[in-house]
């Protein structure tokens, strides 16, 4: 308790229980202001949730559209793939055109061939079947379906490597109608990351400049480890959309020293977050190496924390979430961050790639921490390393 002068005591005693009735319309104004503020609108994290659900649903139901070898291309198993299609550099491919005529072009051959694409992805039409394949001018939905069934029974159908889908665009004239619709590939990433975090605190008002300076001086470099699972779909041309879930655990060691206090104290703080990424990617192949640019956003949800820090008032605040009465500043705190990375991958097996993705991520100030007197600006930098697995062989959107 502060030593009080009689004057202080006089004011405190007389005013602490004194009441002044507010104006009649104050309650109405509060209701009005809250109604405006809470007018129905989607929460800012809704796009992540909607996209994740849509993506998961799409991938789940697209199983019906996946070109699984065991059901659709049993005939392929009768002969090795290289017997279905053996590229020859001087061979000529009769190329169908809509007029019904055929022209012969020097055949460009995709550098890698295997059985990882759907049978429709590329084929060498025999003379007997060429008319059936090329006469697409009057194709209806039913005939498309019928054509697809026929294609799967072609004896000389082969497939192209899905890891180089953009290469297929040069064969678009060869592809049947269904293939000219967007072909999508579903992939799943398993990634681990070591992250380095740099944070700076600034006061929302000049009143808290001293407090932010104190915190900035006390808080050191933080390190975190993350594990992420991302699912995504991508097009032949390398455009993709990925979402999933990421768990991160950030560690921080603080030596807390309050001004005028004789002793400091060391606190080891940890913060655990669950993040939902939503990332747009564009990838390109360079030989076996596949490189891409990833841009997107993260929804950050801090769900568990342990440790302590100093409040603006200078008292030591315990914020361990499991302790009763812990300071709720970070409890279920939502935030968002911007993400950019460069993905690099090389194939290491059937539909499996090893990948590395250096990245930077910057936290957008949390919208749910209006009461917090400081604005936290956080930069993350790190390197994701892991594997990417293609699911199935590709699918058309329904």
């Amino acid at each position: 308790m502060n030593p009080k002068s009689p004057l202080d005591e006089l004011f405190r005693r007389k005013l602490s229980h004194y009441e002044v009735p507010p104006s009649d319309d104050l309650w109405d104004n509060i209701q009005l202001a809250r109604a405006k503020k809470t007018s129905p609108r989607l929460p800012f994290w809704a796009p992540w949730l909607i996209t994740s659900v849509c993506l998961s649903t799409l991938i789940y139901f697209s199983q019906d559209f996946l070109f699984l070898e065991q059901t659709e291309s049993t005939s392929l198993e009768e002969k090795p793939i290289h017997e279905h299609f053996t590229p020859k550099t001087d061979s000529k491919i009769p190329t169908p055109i809509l007029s019904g005529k055929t022209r012969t072009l020097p055949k460009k051959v995709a550098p890698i061939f295997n059985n990882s694409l759907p049978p429709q992805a590329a084929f060498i039409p025999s003379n007997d079947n060429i008319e059936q394949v090329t006469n697409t001018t009057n194709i209806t939905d039913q005939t498309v379906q019928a054509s697809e069934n026929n294609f799967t029974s072609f004896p000389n159908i082969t497939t192209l490597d899905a890891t180089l889908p953009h290469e297929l665009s040069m064969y678009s004239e060869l592809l049947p109608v269904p293939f000219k619709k967007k072909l999508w590939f579903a992939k799943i990433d398993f990634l681990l990351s070591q992250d380095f975090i740099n944070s700076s605190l600034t006061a929302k008002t000049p009143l808290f400049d001293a407090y932010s300076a104190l915190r900035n001086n006390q808080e050191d470099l933080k390190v975190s480890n993350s594990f992420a699972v991302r699912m995504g779909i991508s097009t032949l041309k390398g455009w993709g959309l990925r979402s999933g879930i990421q768990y991160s655990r950030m560690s921080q060691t603080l030596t807390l020293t309050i001004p005028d206090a004789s002793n400091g104290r060391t606190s080891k703080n940890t913060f655990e977050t669950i993040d939902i990424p939503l990332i747009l990617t564009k990838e390109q192949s360079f030989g076996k190496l596949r490189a891409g640019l990833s841009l997107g956003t993260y929804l950050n949800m801090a769900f568990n924390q342990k440790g302590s820090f100093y409040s603006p008032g200078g008292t030591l605040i315990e914020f361990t979430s499991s302790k009763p009465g812990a300071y709720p500043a970070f409890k279920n705190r939502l935030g968002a961050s911007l993400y950019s990375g460069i993905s690099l991958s090389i194939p290491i097996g059937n539909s499996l790639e090893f990948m590395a993705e250096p990245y930077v991520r910057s936290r957008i100030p949390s919208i749910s921490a209006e009461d917090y007197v400081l604005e936290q600006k956080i930069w993350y930098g790190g390197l994701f390393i892991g594997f990417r697995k293609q699911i199935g062989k590709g699918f058309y959107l329904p």
Partner: protein
Amino acid sequence: MRYLNIASPVEDNELIQGCLRQDRKYQEAVFRRYAGKLLVVSLRYARHRMEAEDILQDAFIRIFDHFDQFQGKGSLEGWMRRIVVNTALKNIDKKSFSNEIIGLETTAEDASGALPSVFSQLHEEELLQLIQQLPDGYRIVFNMYAIEGYSHAEISALLGIQESTSRSQLVKARKMLQSQILESQKLAV
């Protein structure tokens, strides 16, 4: 019934539960029960009533929006008072603390002796007016130290000023209040 009859013995716990459910009846009951006391808090920090009501409105919006952050450690009133004070502090210009009032001597010792009896005869409304007439810096520090009970170290950290500035502003505030009270009594005589 438009809102809960707050004259009835509705416990704070019941109000808290209702507010946690975002039940408007209970929110209004909380407003009716505490708005008068909280308006006095905002009046102490504001320069005039209109500003005080703006502060109180913002504070109540924050209270109802973040009711789930009330931990129940202290009283509901104490928690709401802190929010009103924090809301008031948000609107304060730091420059207020550099304004010096010419004519008031700054000394380490301030009036700590017994007050003349005339002081205790002052009504609450008069005391409130005296506080409101103080310059911004004096008013804030006096409120935080004398009435809210913050230490100079805490005020220093909260306001981003030196502790010596806080002490100096307090001494000046007390001197100004005393001189104003004595002046008003002279005029009354």
